């Protein structure tokens, strides 16, 4: 049995932060969970999907984050508890509905978990979701360790029902993707009854109409909820203080930064000089609690990631209470004590302490550091990200690159979000020239495709993955077809949401819970929209560029090329190689004029390497995924593929 649904109350498990959040939701008795995959959030829904049967849940990977939040809201309106999960920029996608949901209020407990990615470890933005919750006036909680991730999620549902409001829980990469010991609680009964009531007094929050109008009335109601929650937060056990009664410096922090701050205090032995106020209820801040701790000392350091959200809110309270608490010196992002970009770590906090308290601290002896740096810089080659061995994207971008070169009109590709975003890098032959949010590649292309009258004759291409197609690229395609925008949209269909770990999407005949569901065909949608559609196998290195070249000569409106081949990490491809690969070392001419290592120097598949001694390319039998692509590009036919029976 999964440790996620262990009934042994009080048992301790090593949970990933995302597992702790999922467990918290299960302990709260949720009936529905929805989300859209995005690192670092995906494991929450994945784990809930695995126990959906045992816990009587409905779990889905929705088409996009806005739909996910709408689906979760429906369960709340029908008096069930529901969880909605996304990464930071997913909140941007969902934000229109978020605003209206904040206005309408909820019924059954509803919690939105957003997993932010400070430092953009797996994002193309360092987005900050916390501001949304202040903007739309929804309470925001931030767990400071793994136990809290579970406990706080559970409590968030209770709070949501007490307020009849959505409650947000914000995690970060170092919380979601870190693991720690968690003591589990009780799992409630799974017997739930759903009913959507609408026959009571029209403004009744539980029996009337669910909506954000009449606006002034609902907005006033919402303000009352915020007042109420501020009071609740004054005594919330997730706000804790550790340290002396009269510290030299007060640290105010939240989330993973709590752990960094505690580590820094410990490293420098500052337990008697520095107080640590850990805030779990980040918005709205409880003013009396803050006033109490701000009174302890005159120097305040605010430790947080991305934007100075906590810092701004603390300063508002300090200004309001200035008469009572006196003038404070604040350290944080605004005065440059804490870095304003990139993720935090214990060393940044150590540096801040050293600066404020005038302490000397050596992290590494300079002799050791010099030696290590010297060896590192002279010996250790950088490890650039790359498509996996056997990845269909490498083949796709090989053909796209070559077709654009052959066409020779300075054509270009608008990129999108997925593994294939890496086609900005040499692994994708540096093919992508714009990259923004999901679906934006085709939207931007649609605009470029209308610039012909201004003398732009460059072919315009866009790429998007299969999951991205449903998420946000479909409206862009409709726009391009409708406005006769002269573009080629390339759908890189690898049959799954590969980047985040193969979550199913509407193109597949299986749901998050493993049920059979109707698959919605990309090609048919595009045809129905009115685009010319071609489907090719990217491993066919002749047909793919030929088709693209022909499509580039077709100046009539939007065309779609679907390049269909399964991800090299998919269970099917991992189970069986297409080919056993081998290099005929006699034939390989290597560095000579006539080849100059096309396979290892340009194709750069990790499944191949260059044997310097023998002056020949070789297959790394551990890494090679047996796609056969390198054998097609070898000018000497020295890379031999043998079909696997």
């Amino acid at each position, binding site marked *: 049995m999964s440790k996620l649904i262990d009934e042994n109350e009080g048992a301790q498990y090593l949970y990933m932060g995302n597992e702790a959040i999922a467990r918290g939701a299960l302990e709260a008795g949720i009936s529905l969970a929805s989300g859209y995959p995005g690192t670092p959030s995906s494991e929450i829904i994945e784990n809930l999907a695995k126990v959906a049967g045992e816990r009587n849940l409905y779990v889905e990977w929705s088409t996009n984050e806005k739909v996910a939040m709408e689906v979760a809201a429906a369960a709340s309106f029908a008096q069930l508890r529901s969880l909605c999960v996304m990464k930071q920029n997913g909140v941007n996608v969902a934000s229109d509905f978020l605003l209206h949901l904040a206005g309408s209020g909820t019924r059954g407990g509803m919690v939105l978990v957003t997993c932010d990615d400070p430092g953009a470890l797996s*994002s193309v933005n360092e987005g900050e979701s916390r501001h949304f919750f202040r903007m739309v006036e929804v309470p925001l909680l931030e767990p400071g360790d793994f136990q809290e991730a579970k406990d706080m999620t559970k409590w968030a549902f209770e709070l949501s029902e007490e307020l009849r409001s959505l409650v947000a829980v914000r995690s970060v990469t170092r919380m979601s993707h870190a693991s720690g010991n968690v003591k589990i609680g009780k799992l409630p009964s799974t017997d739930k009854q759903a009913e959507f009531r609408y026959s009571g007094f029209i403004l009744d929050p539980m029996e009337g109409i669910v909506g954000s109008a009449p606006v002034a009335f609902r907005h006033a109601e919402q303000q009352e909820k915020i007042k109420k929650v501020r009071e609740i937060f004054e005594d919330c056990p997730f706000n804790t203080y550790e340290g002396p009664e009269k510290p030299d410096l007060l640290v105010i922090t939240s989330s993973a930064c709590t*752990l960094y701050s505690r580590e820094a205090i410990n490293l420098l032995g500052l337990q008697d000089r520095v107080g640590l106020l850990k805030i779990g209820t980040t918005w709205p801040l409880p003013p009396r609690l803050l006033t109490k701790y701000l009174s302890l000392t005159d120097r305040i350091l605010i430790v947080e990631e991305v934007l100075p959200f906590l810092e701004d809110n603390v300063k508002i309270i300090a200004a309001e209470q200035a008469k009572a608490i006196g003038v404070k010196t604040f350290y944080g992002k605004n005065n440059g004590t804490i870095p304003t970009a990139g993720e935090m770590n214990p060393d940044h906090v150590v540096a801040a302490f050293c600066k404020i308290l005038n302490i000397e601290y050596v992290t590494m002896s300079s002799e050791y550091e010099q030696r290590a740096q010297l060896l590192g810089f002279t010996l250790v080659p950088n490890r650039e990200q790359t498509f*996996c061995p056997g990845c269909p994207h490498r083949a796709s971008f090989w053909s796209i690159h070559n077709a654009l070169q052959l066409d020779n009109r300075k054509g270009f590709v608008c990129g999108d979000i997925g593994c294939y975003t890496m086609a900005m890098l040499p692994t994708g032959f540096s093919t992508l020239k714009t990259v923004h949010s999901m679906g934006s590649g085709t939207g931007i292309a649609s605009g470029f495709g209308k610039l012909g009258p201004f003398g732009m004759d460059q072919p315009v291409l866009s790429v998007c993955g299969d999951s991205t197609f449903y998420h946000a690229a479909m409206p862009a395609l409709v726009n391009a077809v409708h406005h006769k925008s002269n573009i080629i949209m390339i759908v890189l269909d690898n049959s799954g949401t590969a980047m985040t770990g193969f979550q199913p999407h509407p193109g597949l005949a299986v749901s998050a819970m493993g049920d059979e569901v109707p698959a919605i065909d990309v090609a048919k949608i595009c045809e129905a929209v009115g685009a010319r559609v071609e489907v090719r196998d990217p491993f066919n290195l002749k047909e793919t560029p030929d088709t693209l070249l022909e499509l580039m000569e077709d100046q009539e409106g939007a065309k779609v090329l679907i390049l269909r081949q399964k991800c090299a990490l998919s269970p099917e491809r991992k189970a069986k190689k297409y080919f056993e690969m081998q290099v005929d070392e006699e034939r390989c001419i290597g560095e000579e004029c006539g080849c100059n290592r096309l396979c290892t120097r340009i194709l750069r598949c990790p499944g191949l390497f260059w044997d310097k001694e023998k002056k020949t390319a070789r297959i790394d039998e551990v890494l090679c995924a047996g796609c056969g692509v390198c054998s097609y590009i070898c000018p000497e036919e020295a890379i031999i593929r043998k079909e696997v029976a």
Partner: protein
Amino acid sequence: MGNTALPKDPYSIIITGVGGQGNVMASRVLANMLVRRGYQITIGETFGASQRGGSVMSHIRISQNATWSPQIPKGKADVVVTLEPIEAIRVLMTYGNPDVQVLTNTRPIYPVGVISGELAYPSIEEIQESVKDLSAHAWFVDATEEAIKMGNPILGNIIMIGAVAGIGALPVDRADFEEVIKENLPAGTLEVNLQAFDVGVAKVTA
């Protein structure tokens, strides 16, 4: 369950390698072995985009009773386990110190920059010398080669876990491993995993 005193609290381990090598699996197995012994564990992991051929790291913090940062402070690793040899030096540049113990798998995975010829990959001798120079103790294990002999290169990770147990740097043993494998990996894989574990122990104790 009672636990034995740690050499330091927190005691910090880094498991490093290249995306796709099974870094996360190795760190989970090791951490679960320690949880069984009653320690408070924190693991910090890198995954997502960096998994695609980039360097990946898991930071494991072991404590009697506290939750520490999922990122080890600079210069504070106690044990470094690397599934790919040059990653050892890369990690020591930031987290090394003269007292660190290092266990290295000797099978290289070439970065694309090396495959393309823009960058050079050092000889295994140069790597060994550097790792020895930057550590108190260093072990080099041909884990992937042994794993290939056993029929599956991914067992290299288990061989490395066996080696960690073998050097005695951590309060864990074969029984912990066996329990964790039973709980976490598919039935039927126990025997081969135990064999791999034993190969790892033998590599560092022979």
